[in-house]
Each structure stands twice: as C-alpha cells, then as structure tokens.
C-alpha cells in the first residue's frame, strides 16, 4: 500500500483548534480515511476535545460524543449496544482517547470493555503526557522526561500498555505511529474488519508537550520507531507480528538507533544533557528499551 492508495475523502475539516503541527489531527485524518463515514466516535477529555472546536461548530464530520475523562470505553459499550439493539450493526464504534485517558484514569473502563467483549475499536493516541491540561506526567510518560509534575524528570518507567492489552487476549491489538500513515491505515482497516474488542495505539509526538519545533512531528515519530523506543506490531488472537522497521529490529536485521538520537531533540529531556550529560539516566533509558526488546524476542519470535 502506498500513500496514493489512501482515500481522498476527509472527515476532518480544516480550521480547528489544534496547535500547528499536531499529531492528533494528523492521525485523525488517516483514521477517518480508514474507517469511513459510517463511524461514531466517543472521546473523553483530552486535546481532541479542544481540537474539535467550539460549540456550535465542530471540525469533525462524523458523529462524535464527548464523555467524561474516565468513561470512554464504558460509553462505547453503551453506544455499541444501543446501535445493535436498533439493528445498526454496520456502524463502527470508536473510542478515541489520549494516553492519560487510557493508561491512567480510563484503564478501568477500558479493561472492563475488553473483558465484556464490546465490539468496538479503542484508539489511544499516545503523546506521553496530559497535554490538554498543560503537560503533566501520565502513566505513558517515559522515565527521565520533564513534565510540570515531574520537574526534575520522571522517576518511574512508563506502563507497558501494549503488554497489558495483550494480557486481555482480545481479537486484535496493534501499535502504530503517526509517522507511518500506511501502517496506521492498514491496522485500522483490519481492526474494522474484526468482531469484538480491538485496541490500536498510535505514537503521537506533540511539539509543545515534548518541546520540539512544530515542523518535526513526523521525524520525532520516525525516530521513536528507529530507536526502538516504540515498536510497530499487531496481535491477532494472541499471534504477534512485528511490522516495518520494528520487524527488522526484532529479527536483528538492523540495529536500533541509540536513544540519544531521539531524546536530544526533545526539550523535555534537556536536563539529561545540560548543564552536564546525565549518563546514568540516559543509560537507564537505553537499558530499559533493551530489556523490552529482549522480552519481545523471547515471546514473539
């Protein structure tokens, strides 16, 4: 699949409230292309609740319901049941949430919806922070990163949401990244074609949140994958397949790039380089990624 093959039709309408260079709208465009108009979206509090723009207008051209921060997946269970009871089983029900709404405050509703087999797609766009509220730590924030609530760098490692999701043994789960629109598109199309709960997580580098220039969103995504900080893979009924670069890394066909290559371009890691390079913490990050790949190799190869 090439970029050219992606549909022209847009359900995202220009002129919204997103920051320039926003990864969320970048992803949303592709998501809408993959899912089509017969889709209903539930979104909890997150940047997207601002992005959609002010009442009485909206920048989204598919029906969208905002719901409380912790309630996206539960709301989706209700929406799905509501449509099903009306015989409208062709509508794709999507919950679209940030990492905060997924890893932290929304994990319970999500875990519940997966367990009770709700037929929906849960999409997490992961910018590794609470960006809507002005950059606080989330469960997805990586070790060492500055946020307004981790002023000297986060002291814990991020949750491995991918593994947590896999432990739920749902029919389809995938990790992708805004820098790979074809990958994103394919994964969502596949998710759409499968019955039951699906989970897709999109790595979404956020310029103001990570402190990089707004034109670099795509590069930051590419580097996340190339350094191995983020892996592209999909899981169908417990069968794991790595994709693209990540597959090559898994198979040892290419080396993953050093993590420094990525984090040094992000203001949120500045304190690891200035005034003095914090070798210990950088190594801790590197080691942690190594361990992750070791696990991947052990179970998924």
């Amino acid at each position, binding site marked *: 699949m090439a970029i050219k093959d992606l549909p022209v039709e847009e359900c*995202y*309408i220009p002129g*919204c409230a997103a920051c*320039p260079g926003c990864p969320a709208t970048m992803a949303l465009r*592709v998501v809408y292309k993959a899912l089509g108009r017969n889709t209903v979206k539930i979104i909890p509090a997150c940047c997207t609740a601002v992005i959609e723009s002010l009442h*009485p207008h909206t920048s989204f051209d598919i029906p969208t319901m905002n719901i409380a921060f912790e309630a996206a997946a539960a709301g989706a269970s209700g929406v799905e049941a509501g449509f099903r009871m009306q015989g409208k089983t062709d509508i794709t029900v999507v919950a679209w949430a940030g990492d905060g709404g997924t890893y932290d405050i929304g994990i319970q509703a999500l875990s519940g919806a997966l367990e009770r087999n709700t037929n929906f797609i849960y999409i997490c766009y992961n910018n590794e922070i609470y960006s809507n509220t002005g950059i606080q730590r989330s469960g997805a924030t990586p070790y060492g990163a500055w946020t307004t609530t981790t002023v000297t760098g986060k002291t814990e490692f991020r949750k491995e949401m991918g593994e947590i999701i896999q432990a739920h043994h749902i029919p389809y789960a995938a990790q992708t990244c805004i820098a790979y629109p074809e990958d994103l598109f394919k994964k969502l199309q596949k998710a759409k074609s499968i019955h039951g709960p699906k989970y897709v997580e999109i790595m979404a580098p956020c310029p103001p949140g990570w402190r990089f220039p*707004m034109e670099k*969103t795509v*590069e930051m995504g590419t580097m996340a994958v190339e350094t191995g900080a983020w892996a592209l893979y999909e899981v169908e009924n417990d069968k794991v397949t790595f994709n693209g670069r990540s597959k090559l890394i898994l198979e040892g066909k290419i080396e993953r790039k050093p993590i420094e290559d990525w984090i040094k371009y992000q203001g949120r890691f500045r304190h690891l380089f200035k005034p003095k390079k914090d070798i210990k913490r950088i190594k801790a990050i590197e080691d942690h990624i190594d361990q992750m790949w070791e696990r991947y190799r052990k179970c998924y190869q």
Partner: protein
Amino acid sequence: MKKYDVVTTISYPKKGAMGKTGNWRVFRPILDKKKCVKCLRCWIYCPEATIIRNKDDSVDIDYVYCKGCGICANVCKVKAITLEREGKKK
C-alpha cells in the same frame, strides 16, 4: 444536516470552526509545482488537511486555514515546499 431542537451542547460540522486559522500563521509554505513529484507525502502528513490533493495527485495549499506548521516543507523530499515569513499584509 438536520438541526436538533434541544438546548444542549450540539455542534454542527463547519469549515473554519475556529475561524480562519490561516491567521495564526507565522511562516507560509510556498509550493514550487515544478519541483513537485506528486509523492503526496505533504498531503498525508499535513495535520490540517490544508494540502489539497487534486485529481492528478498534484497538490495545492489552502492558505485560509493552513496554520504554517512547516511539516509539509519538512517531509517533502524534493524540497518543493519552502517556508517564508508571513509579510505584514496577506
């Protein structure tokens, strides 16, 4: 589009729901059609859907809403898009 008769927060799709966001622009992407190889990278990566994809896969820029993030210029491998500081008057 049907309008619902209820006083709650119902909103309707609209181009420029936040106004003409082209006004936010500090840098202006300038497209050199001659250089363009129609790879559509700028189109798919533009966070604003303000790269217009034409029937022939050539592209145009919708300056009314383009926020000037510069991503299109950055992802164009042939440098067909460049950024210019916005002038005093548009």
